[in-house]
């Protein structure tokens, strides 16, 4: 009783120390924790491995040729940026990944919608897609080189092969997850098939599809190094591969960390778009 009193008075009057509430137990099963606690744990999760890495590199226990410290990696990144065209490497890699992913998305979106909506399309395409998606994308490299050549198209093609088939199936699944009651309600209001897809199925599955696009973007990045195996002479993946030849482990570390960082940034951008587009109606009371 007294806490509500405090709270309501606190709202009306000038800033005042909020009444101390009982904080929930930290290790409760599926328990909620405050934003501050969350951030503290998140930071610890990042800093602890970084410190461990630094300590291991400093200890002299590991040969610095094979395990460079964080300082060496940062230095390498700096010189890569100033002398070795890191910006260009990042640019071309982003171009290839986003290109391959976008090409996948453009084709997978309508196909996934059709597979998830119409049984005959599902029967015709889903087993086939399921079959192809188990084929290793790397194994397609020789074919891609023969068919497309060794320019940008081939790198985009590898990333496309790596993401497309998963993406189609996931989008079809997102579409199938639309509650049947939403569809039938529209039918009883006189919606045509085309209207069902355009006015119900697509808008209803949009948030899930955006999540699929975000997740497959992550997978597209994992295919970058593979794609840049194909007669590349630029890009982050290529740089990593080349660094192996010159024993530049610091560059390998830097390249891997950069790919992770770029992936994380893109992922956060997707989440932001998701919140902006759908947050308004998806949040429960």
């Amino acid at each position, binding site marked *: 009783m007294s806490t509500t009193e405090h709270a309501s008075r606190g709202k009306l009057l000038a800033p005042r120390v909020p009444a101390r509430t009982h904080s929930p137990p930290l290790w409760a099963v599926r328990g909620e924790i405050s934003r501050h606690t969350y951030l503290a744990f998140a930071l610890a999760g990042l800093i602890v491995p970084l410190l461990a890495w630094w300590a291991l590199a400093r200890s002299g226990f590991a040969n610095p040729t094979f395990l460079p410290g964080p300082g060496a990696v940062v230095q390498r990144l700096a010189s890569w940026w100033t002398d070795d065209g890191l910006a260009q490497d990042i640019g071309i890699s982003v171009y290839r990944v986003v290109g391959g992913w976008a090409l996948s998305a453009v084709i997978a979106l309508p196909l996934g919608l059709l597979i998830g909506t119409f049984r005959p399309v599902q029967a015709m395409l889903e087993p086939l897609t399921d079959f192809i998606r188990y084929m290793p994308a790397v194994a397609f490299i020789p074919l891609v080189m023969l068919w497309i050549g060794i320019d940008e198209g081939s790198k985009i093609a590898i990333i496309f092969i790596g993401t497309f088939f998963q993406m189609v199936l996931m989008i079809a699944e997102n579409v199938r997850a639309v*509650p049947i*009651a*939403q569809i*039938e*309600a*529209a*039918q*009883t*209001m*006189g*919606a*045509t098939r085309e*209207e069902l897809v355009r*006015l*119900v199925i697509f*808008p*209803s599955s*949009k948030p899930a599809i955006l999540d699929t696009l975000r997740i497959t973007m992550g997978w597209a990045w994992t295919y970058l190094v593979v794609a840049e195996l194909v007669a590349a002479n630029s890009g982050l993946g290529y740089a990593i591969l080349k660094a192996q030849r010159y024993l530049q482990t610091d560059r390998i570390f830097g390249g891997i960390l950069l790919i992770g960082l770029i992936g994380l940034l893109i992922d956060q951008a997707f989440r932001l778009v998701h919140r902006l587009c*759908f947050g*308004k*109606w*998806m*949040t*429960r*009371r």
Partner: protein
Amino acid sequence: MNFLSSKISIGRVSKYFGRGSAQIRALADIELDVQENEFVTLVGASGCGKSTLLRILGGLETIDEGAVRVDGQPIEGPGVERAMVFQHYSLYPWLTVRENIQFSRRLKTNRRDQTESTVEVASGRADALLRSMGLTHVEHSYPNQLSGGMQQRVAIARALQGRPSILLMDEPFGALDAQTREVMHDLILHVHGLEKTTIVFVTHDVEEAIYLGHRVVLMAPRPGRIDTIYDVPLPARRDPDMKLSPAFIALKREILARIRETSGMKTDLDMLEQLTRTAV
């Protein structure tokens, strides 16, 4: 009852699910006539086909034998004169309450003869429904921000927007808590009085079926069939106190006993009885 004057007439309707040895008779020789402005409730144990029958009326399921006529015309798929209210998940979460209610305006069927005045009428209709359903203050909210009871009111308002002559309700209050359900009962009775619609209402709650219905149709499973039709011996104007009247309780007892007899759960009951006997 006269075939021609019935609002809905269901004649010897059968429906099968599955093929070969796995085939089951979901509905067997269903005969039922529903009069204009009547409120009919369907109850029965699970698997008795009550929802299937309702979905047939809604045009969402086809029949294998027999005939279903609405106003003397055979049913061919869904139609705007037969609106349907589902148990849940039928609202469009990306649309506001008002947009949900006016969803049908986005469809070609209703746009074809749309003039400025019909648009005005439609939006006036939405206003009136928002008012009578107590939704005016949340018209710009999204469904996820509403309680379950409010969401069902939106679903009912949306179904009524097109002035259907028949309202088909498939356990619309099944997911609501008991208090909210009682409020919804009086609301739907009010709507029925106001709109002069014919209502076919599926439920597994016998009390709900008696309180709302002019007639209670008891269905039985394996095969899905109509077992008994009860006339509800209550005045047309219902009020919650009637749920405690002797006539109400007697009918409830009769129907519950009959459901138990027809549900095929008899073996379970026998087993339970045996268990209690051995326990002692």
